[in-house]
């Protein structure tokens, strides 16, 4: 069985990362996470708990499609459970926008007061839900951290390896460009862990594997489509040889696509998240690729892990969820196929 | 201002006289540290001073009563009087001590309101008394008054003059600006006269006449008194009639008629609610009962816009807050109430606005005579002229003047009286609210006296005298 907790020496990032781990309370990218298939084969069927079980899930903000899809996944999982005779409900709420740290905490506290049996939390920042998690611990409620904010004192982290996000994009771009050319990065806001890791993963991959690729510019656009477009407009003129732009999310990437289209140039644009609009855009041949982390399945995995945890199974600290690069070659492929999805085994 | 050079003796009452815009207020502002950049010297008891701000002047022992009422409406009367110099107990303000002290001053001034009242409940005249109380609060060696009586009625004026005499006997030096020359003779020892920013002369008040003063101020002869030059021209035709006007808790049972060609005055003490009645008629404040008729027809006026549509004009009593727009030029201010006349469709015709302004600049002898000058930087009296011009521009049938000559110099007053006479001669009706009895007596066809929100008497032209008016005014 995988070990719990952190032993950092074999982590990916080398000496610098070790340093980081000593000050950082928790960084999943440096943990020995395992994937859900591995977990299932080790632990068997999803345990059926006694009595009715009420799970509370808190997403960041439903204003964002990504989190609405995550919510949908919780619903799908709840239906599957109920179809298999499990008495489990999953309620999903979100904060009011990604700046509403206090509001998100209110939701968690409310769930604790309402005596939910388990919590699945995706915090806005690394710290804002910490007091709530402390209360949950006191009340004996298990807490699963569903990416992308990090909760140091949660029981389990479920999410994709964030750094890989950027690495996948970098790998794809360097391959398409044959290892040389100028690229630029549109960052979101210097905010949550995932956003930082996306950029870092991209840069580190290029530095290590594609020295011919030059990152000529890197600016933030506050996750705003219009600001990203403006940035790209300027860059395209400033760097006539610009070959690719990597964006921290799809919304910004779609703004950049508009700029690229109107410039008439052939510049690769890659986003992150895999929202519906990004898929459409790839189908139309506008956006070149996106890194999908499959929120619809991520939440199902998170739900499953929570039930296993509550059923007393021993769960490692980090569970990796699937992610994949979507481009014109696989955009029509069903997600199940891309990630090799298998339904969990339920008890009868 | 240029080459002003004179002395004030310790313990005297020294009047500063001059036309509107002569530089009187500016001179005081220099003395009190409100303008700190000037050439020349001010010395007090042989030490040269140059105050950088009001605080330094007050600390030095010289205090000032400002021309415009300038109070903090959110604070109580007492807090306003003590503002900046509150007595302290430890770190906190000693409110009890403060209110005792300020109440004593109010009593000395003969005020009816208390220190704990809010400014908002007071009339303009009462606010003026607070400004005076403020100066007394500082126990200053030198106190200057910039037109302290322009909003006061006789009773308060007399009380103030007594107090100034009392101050003088306590060795306090008083500088006194006024356009009411009678007051000069009552209290002043000497008077200095300014004209166009230049010093003219200093006179011993004893043994000279009003005419001498006026001559020095204006440089020519003017009729200094409010008298009707043209024959009376009141008709029988009612222009405006009020029937049983009432505003809960403010005034009630106000009924009167004003005829075309007539000047009807409202007299009364400060706080008689004359202003409230006029504002209510004009639609500026709500009324709770009664009916206004114009040219015999019932009208319902709820906003000033409707009042204008019915041919009414109101020249308000407080020029700063109700009269002019600060950033506007003279031309713009004069046009504001008559924009329809200066516009083609929705577009404004700048040329016509200037033309209109030029006309009134000449009519009213405005200084400086520039239509593009900001009204805000005019002297008090000149700003008043701009406001009167603004309402004359509307060319209405029924004009309400609330304290029309407040702060206006003798020469300009004569002009305004002449304008009023012209208006009634042209068949207009005038309602005048005034606290200056000579003006009321000299100009009116008829006078209604108010007291505490009620009409207490009506006097015909031949019954008018200071005694008869005061008799009614004091009744309540």
């Amino acid at each position, binding site marked *: 069985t995988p070990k719990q907790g952190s032993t950092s020496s074999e982590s990916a990032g080398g000496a610098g990362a070790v340093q980081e781990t000593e000050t950082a309370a928790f960084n999943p990218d440096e943990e020995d996470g395992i994937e859900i298939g591995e977990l299932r084969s080790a632990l068997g069927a999803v345990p059926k708990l006694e009595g009715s079980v009420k799970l509370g899930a808190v997403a960041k903000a439903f204003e964002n499609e990504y989190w609405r899809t995550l919510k949908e996944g919780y619903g799908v999982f709840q239906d599957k459970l109920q179809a298999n005779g499990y008495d489990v409900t999953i309620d999903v709420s979100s904060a009011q926008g990604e700046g509403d740290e206090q509001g998100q905490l209110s939701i968690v506290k409310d769930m604790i007061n309402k005596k939910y049996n388990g919590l699945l939390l995706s915090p806005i920042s690394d710290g804002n839900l910490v007091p709530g998690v402390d209360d949950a611990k006191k009340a004996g409620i298990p807490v699963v951290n569903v990416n992308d904010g990090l909760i140091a004192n949660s029981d389990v982290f479920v999410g994709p390896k964030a750094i890989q996000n950027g690495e996948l994009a970098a790998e794809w771009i360097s391959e398409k460009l044959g290892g040389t050319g100028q690229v630029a990065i549109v960052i979101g806001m210097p905010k949550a862990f995932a956003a930082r890791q996306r950029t870092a993963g991209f840069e580190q991959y290029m530095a290590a594997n594609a020295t011919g690729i030059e990152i000529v510019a890197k600016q933030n656009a506050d996750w705003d489509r219009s600001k990203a477009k403006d940035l790209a407009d300027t860059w395209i003129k400033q760097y006539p040889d610009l070959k690719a732009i990597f964006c921290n999310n799809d919304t910004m990437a779609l703004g950049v696509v508009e700029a690229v289209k109107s410039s008439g140039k052939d510049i690769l644009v890659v986003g992150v998240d895999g929202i519906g609009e990004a898929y459409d855009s790839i189908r139309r041949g506008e956006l070149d690729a996106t890194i999908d982390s499959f929120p619809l399945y991520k939440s199902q995995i998170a739900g499953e892990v929570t039930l296993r945890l509550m059923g007393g199974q021993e769960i490692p600290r980090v569970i990796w969820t699937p992610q994949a690069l979507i481009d014109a070659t696989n955009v029509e492929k069903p997600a199940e196929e891309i990630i090799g999805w298998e339904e969990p085994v339920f008890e009868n | 201002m240029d080459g002003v050079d004179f002395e004030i003796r310790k313990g005297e009452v020294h009047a500063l006289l001059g036309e509107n815009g002569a530089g009187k207020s500016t001179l005081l502002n220099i003395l009190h540290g409100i303008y700190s*950049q000037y050439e020349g010297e001010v010395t007090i008891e042989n030490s040269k001073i140059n105050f950088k701000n009001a605080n330094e002047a007050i600390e030095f022992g010289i205090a000032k009563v400002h021309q415009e009422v300038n109070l903090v409406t959110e604070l109580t009367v007492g807090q306003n009087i003590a503002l900046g110099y509150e007595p302290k107990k430890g770190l906190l303000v000693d409110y009890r001590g403060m209110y005792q002290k300020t109440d004593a001053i109010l009593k000395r001034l003969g005020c009816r309101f208390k220190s704990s009242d809010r400014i908002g409940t007071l009339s303009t005249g009462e606010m003026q008394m607070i400004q005076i109380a403020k100066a007394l609060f500082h126990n200053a060696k030198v106190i200057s008054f910039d037109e302290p009586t322009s909003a006061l009625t006789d009773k308060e004026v007399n009380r103030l003059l007594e107090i100034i005499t009392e101050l003088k006997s306590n060795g306090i030096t008083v500088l006194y600006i006024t356009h009411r020359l009678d007051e000069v003779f009552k209290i002043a020892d000497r008077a200095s006269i300014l004209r166009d920013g230049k010093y003219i002369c200093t006179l011993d008040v004893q043994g000279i006449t009003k005419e001498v003063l006026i001559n020095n101020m204006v440089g020519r002869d003017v009729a200094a008194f409010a008298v009707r030059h043209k024959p009376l021209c009141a008709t029988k035709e009612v222009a405006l009639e009020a029937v049983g006007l009432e505003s809960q808790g403010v005034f009630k049972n106000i009924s009167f008629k004003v005829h075309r060609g007539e000047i009807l005055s409202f007299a009364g003490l400060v706080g008689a609610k004359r202003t409230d009645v006029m504002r209510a008629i004009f639609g500026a404040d709500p009324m709770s009962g009664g009916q206004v008729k114009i040219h015999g027809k019932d009208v319902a006026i709820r906003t000033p816009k409707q009042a204008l549509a019915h041919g009414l004009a109101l020249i308000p009593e407080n020029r700063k807050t109700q009269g002019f727009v600060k*950033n506007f030029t003279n031309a713009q201010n004069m046009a504001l109430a008559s924009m329809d006349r200066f516009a083609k469709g929705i577009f404004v015709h700048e040329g016509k606005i200037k033309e209109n302004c030029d006309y009134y600049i000449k009519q009213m002898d405005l200084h400086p005579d520039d239509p593009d000058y900001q009204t805000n930087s005019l002297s008090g009296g000149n700003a008043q002229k701009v406001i009167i011009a603004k309402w004359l521009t509307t060319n209405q049938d029924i004009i309400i003047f609330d304290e029309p000559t407040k702060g206006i110099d003798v020469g300009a007053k004569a002009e305004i009286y002449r304008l009023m006479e012209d208006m009634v001669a042209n068949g207009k009706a005038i309602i005048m609210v005034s606290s200056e009895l000579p003006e009321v007596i000299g100009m009116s066809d008829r006078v209604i006296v108010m007291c505490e929100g009620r009409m207490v008497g009506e006097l015909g032209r031949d019954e008018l005298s200071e005694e008869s008016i005061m008799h009614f005014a004091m009744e309540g």
Partner: protein
Amino acid sequence: MKSIWKKFSRELGIIVALVILIAVFGILEPLYLTPTNLMDIVDQSVINGLLAVGITMVIITGGIDLTVGSTMAVVIVCIGNLLVGGLNPVAAILLGVLLGFVLGGLNGFLIAKMHLQPFIATLGMMSVYRGIAYLVTGGWPVLSIPQNFRTAMDGDVAGVFPSSVVILLLATSVGYVILKHTKFGTYLYAMGNNEEATRLSGVNVDFNKIIAYALCGVSTALAGMVLLAKLGTGEPTAGQGYELNAIAAAAVGGTSLAGGKGSMLGTFFGAILLQALKVGLVVLGVDTFWQYIATGVIIIVAVYLDIVQEKIKSWKFERKFAR
């Protein structure tokens, strides 16, 4: 010539600041001065410029409008939906303008008739309108805006000039004429300066205030539709935080937040200056974190320049006392 000079002396401060800024960036990075880059700056100023046109009017009355970002979002999703549903672009634009007028007018109503303070009334409505924008689409963006609408609002005019720039220039001109040459404009300044005196002058202050907010809604709606055309997608999250940028543009252009003072041209140049600054920082590759600092400092310096210039202008008045 001299009279033109005098006429625009109000805008002198901001024009000088803009020229200095462009010169400095041009020296540091000659690429900055290429026509395409300069054209880009103007093009990218359109949204903020349009918002600032309306906000300038409102600020002159002594008010403020924090809803512009949210109002934009409502217009974007509503008109976006109608367009996708097949509505004719011209009808959609007219409807959008009307919608802006109504939303803005509602703000004006709360302020003029219910006597709410502008800041707090529009702070509340900012939240309400945002909620409405989300509800209209359930949070999802409106996709695939028809090309004919996009061309109308953001296509090329005569092959060089984006039509969005034309829209901004038109809106600024109309705003200029309204402020300088109409009764309504005169009343806006008068109200912002001394509301009581204006009311006593027989002006229907409440009505004019409501219209001012409604017109702000109209220019906001135009901004929203240009954005919709530029991006081809209508997002209910659009415009967050744009209100502060628009207010900054007006303030940098010399409009006083105390009311009664301001000019449309100043605002226009203010919007351009802010965008020129942003593009300049991008072109120089200034670190994101330093950009925050630079932006703040430049806003403060630009506004301060305006204050200093006003002081110099009224030096003569001061001199009077000095003698």
